[in-house]
């Protein structure tokens, strides 16, 4: 189905050539996710559990990297205090594109138990980072984190590489037309 449709316009950005290349690139990125060793609070315990033998995060192709330069995604596992937020943002900015973020647990999603009176807590990590997947739970079960991981991989598989540039150019053009 998908492959046959691509035969209509073989050299187009959706065509069999670029489309397949895009699929391959997306496949590589989704199957080889290196995560940053970055634990913040109690969610990090569950995160460690996912790393350990019973759940084995490496099944998804996730290898721990301690340097943000080599990591592909970061799991915000726990409460992000305002003091840590600076550091977290810096670590995220040090990561090489393409980079992804999984917000794990209530604290990372929206401040969690501290959302109302926590004077020291960032109310949701999406205030400073673009979060890709939100995993609810306080803390989430290890399986829930794995589901988040699978969702992230699905998202990466669906990404546009060649079409994105075209689409952005079109949007740009449309914006300019509107402006005039």
């Amino acid at each position: 189905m998908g492959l046959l449709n691509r035969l209509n316009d073989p050299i187009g950005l959706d065509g069999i050539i670029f489309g397949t290349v895009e699929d391959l690139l997306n496949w590589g990125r989704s199957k080889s996710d290196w995560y940053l060793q970055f634990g913040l609070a109690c969610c990090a315990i569950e995160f460690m559990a996912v790393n350990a033998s019973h759940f084995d995060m490496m099944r998804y192709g996730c290898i721990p990297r301690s340097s943000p330069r080599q990591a592909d995604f970061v799991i915000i596992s726990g409460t992000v205090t305002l003091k840590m937020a600076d550091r977290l943002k810096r670590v995220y900015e040090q990561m090489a594109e393409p980079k992804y973020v999984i917000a794990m647990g209530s604290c990372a999603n929206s401040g969690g138990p501290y959302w109302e009176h926590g004077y020291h807590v960032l109310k949701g990590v999406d205030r400073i980072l673009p979060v890709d997947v939100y995993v609810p739970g306080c803390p989430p079960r290890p399986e829930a984190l794995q589901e988040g991981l699978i969702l992230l991989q699905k998202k990466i598989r669906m990404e546009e590489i060649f079409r994105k540039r075209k689409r952005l150019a079109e949007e740009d053009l449309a914006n300019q037309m509107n402006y005039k």
Partner: protein
Amino acid sequence: MKDYFKNVWLGVWTALIGMRITIDHLFRKNVTVQYPNVHPKDKAGWMDMPSNARNRLYVDMDECNGCNSCARACPVNCISIETVRSVPGDAPPPLASGGKRNLWVSQFEIDFTKCCFCSLCTEACPTGAIVMTTEFEYSSYNRYDLVYNFVKLQNSMSDEKIAEVKEKWAEHQKEKKKEAVEPK
């Protein structure tokens, strides 16, 4: 001198012990549970969900009488309930378990990004409408998808119905005010 050789021997020997242990583990059966294939809710899983597992909340709107106990019990205020009082003669349908209801529950929102899954709301609930389920797979790409409005989800009240009920209550209030003013 004797200590030196003892030390060297100890270093080599302990390394060999360690290597024997790891090579032993290399050929053992692994303990990994392959999550999407082996689900913890299946009995085949290495451990099924414990009976007191605290996961996603579920609210049975047919059982909810809008008493707000759960919202008051919630330590993080992640439950927000809006109720509309019913006018006389237009009472909501009774609870599924048979109790009387005086309030239309027009909105029952639980923000699962804030919820700390402490289960206090389930204990506070007089009718047992709010319960902890074993469902944990509800990650999402969008934070606002995690705010569950159970009224909408279960379609217990349509928007028109809510508007109608609100209007009725407003009219009722007006009439009451008029009645309160007129006798003077």
